[in-house]
């Protein structure tokens, strides 16, 4: 075992259970229910991916899981304990980068341990290990503004992982990256996950991303947000993009998920959702290509 590997703390994966959660916003007469009676489990040591059309309330769910907001009804628990506020147990990677612009890559990565006054020789070694893992050794003294979009996301992954959370929550983390970078990020992220098997919860609108990464896939319905279907993605690991392109099984899963999403989009389309109209168009394009 290398010295760097010894610096790695033991991973304790957690399990999050969402039971009958509803969340609504606004004053009494203008209440809008975004999440209604939503239940699902983020299973221990698995990568659960939530797919659904944009604007379907996924980000609201993330805020509930992170503890930034509280459900109107129902409960969110981590290993049986109710979630009351933000905690290092559940770290969130947001859509936009939240790296501190005034800190170098290295200072950003070490932020968590330093903020808690826990910086030791081991955390520094673990930091070095993670820095190498996300391929940013040459950029340790650069500021986030000097990094590319993909590098920023990787630095952020490292910044979260140094805290050794029980659950990692990722809210469309690779959105806005160009296609090439995105695929590179998928491989980086999949490798990180396959090496440590932490509990991961990954939210996306991208079905290719979902199938490539997921152990379990939660297909969501539109507002109010509910789980429409759970698909077990039993593709072998470690996964490589090149293998996946040719996999019939992957394509079957993709088609299955898409058909559910399509039905869902048609339903909200008939109720006049703009996002659904975009989705139907995208779906038809995709179907004609396949």
């Amino acid at each position, binding site marked *: 075992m290398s010295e760097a590997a010894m610096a790695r703390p033991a991973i304790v994966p957690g399990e999050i259970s969402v039971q009958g959660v509803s969340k609504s916003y606004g004053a009494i007469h203008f209440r809008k229910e975004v999440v209604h009676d939503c239940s699902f489990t983020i299973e221990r040591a698995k990568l659960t991916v939530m797919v659904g059309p944009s604007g379907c309330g996924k980000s609201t769910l993330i805020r509930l899981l*992170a*503890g*930034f907001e509280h459900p109107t009804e129902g409960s969110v628990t981590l290993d049986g304990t109710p979630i009351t506020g*933000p*905690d*290092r147990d*559940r*770290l*969130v990677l*947001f859509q*936009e980068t*939240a790296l*501190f*612009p*005034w*800190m170098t890559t290295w200072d950003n990565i070490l*932020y*968590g341990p330093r*903020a*808690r006054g826990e910086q030791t020789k081991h955390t520094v070694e673990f930091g070095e290990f993670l820095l190498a893992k996300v391929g940013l050794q040459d950029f340790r003294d*650069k*500021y*986030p*503004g*000097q990094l590319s979009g993909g590098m920023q996301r990787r630095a952020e992954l490292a*910044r979260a992982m140094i*805290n050794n959370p029980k659950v990692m929550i990722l809210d469309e983390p690779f959105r806005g990256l160009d296609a090439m970078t995105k695929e590179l990020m998928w491989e980086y992220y999949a490798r990180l996950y396959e090496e440590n098997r932490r509990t991961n919860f990954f939210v996306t609108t991208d079905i290719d991303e979902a199938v490539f990464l997921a152990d379990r896939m939660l297909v969501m319905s539109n507002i109010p947000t509910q789980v429409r279907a759970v698909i077990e993605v039993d593709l072998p690991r470690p996964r490589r993009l090149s293998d996946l392109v040719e996999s019939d099984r992957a394509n079957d899963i993709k088609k299955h998920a898409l058909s559910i999403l399509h039905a869902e989009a048609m339903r909200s389309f008939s109720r006049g959702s703009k996002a659904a109209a975009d989705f139907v168009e995208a779906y038809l394009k995709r179907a004609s290509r396949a």
Partner: protein
Amino acid sequence: MKKMLSNPVFWRGAVSIVVFLILWEIGSRSKQWMAPEFFTPFKEFLGAMGFKKDYLPWIGAVPAPSAVLKSWIPVLGQAGYWQSWYMSFFRVMGGFIAAMIIGIPFGLMLAVSRVAHDVGFPVFEVLRPIPPLAWVPASIIFWPTQESAIIFITFLGAFYTIVINVLGGARSIDVRYFQAAQSMGASRWDIFRRVILPGTLPSIVVGSAVGMGITWEVVVAAEMISGGGSQQAGTGGGLGFFIWNSYVGGSYEQIVVGMISIGVAGFVSSELLRWGGRYVTPWLKAR
């Protein structure tokens, strides 16, 4: 130095200053070149517009740069002139540093604490629209010495700007940074120290730069109104008083000397500030 000479930015700046001085010289000498018969219709036209007939309006009455330079050279040897520089700088720095020392924590406090904001902001907002110069009579009466009165007025000039900028800067820090820090287990103090403070620094720098400009405006006016602060006559009472004294003494060239001196002084102080600002916010230039 060599780098500066090969920099087009430097040359553009140099050319613009030289062209400005040449145009000024020509304009100031309009009395001479407008003497020939040839210009008679033009002079009549100026007269019809209500201006003096024998030189270009306004600029013809201003001393030419060559004349200004001629009267500047002996002034350079006077201790009083340098005393004026020293006095004005001393007052500007005194007021400005006091404004930073009081204004930055005050602004941060307003931004961080709901209660402090509710209690402090209304008073601040009522006092803020009062121009610093409106404080001159009151502060001359209430401060023990004229010197402290002038420094107080200078302080007011920078204080409001710094506070408003710090408050706005701290308020506009993205909520994601707080959420990230919070979920990684940072304490309130740590969030203040490592998120709010550095996140506000760019606004502190901007506020200080603007505040510095205002201090120079205010100090000059305060010196003129309060008669230079110190009792000694002559040119020992700051650059503002130097100008006023030149005006009273009828030395128009020296008025311009004083004006340009203030321009240079203001430029030097904002340049120093900008340099300091770049030093404390290294991540902003690193793009």
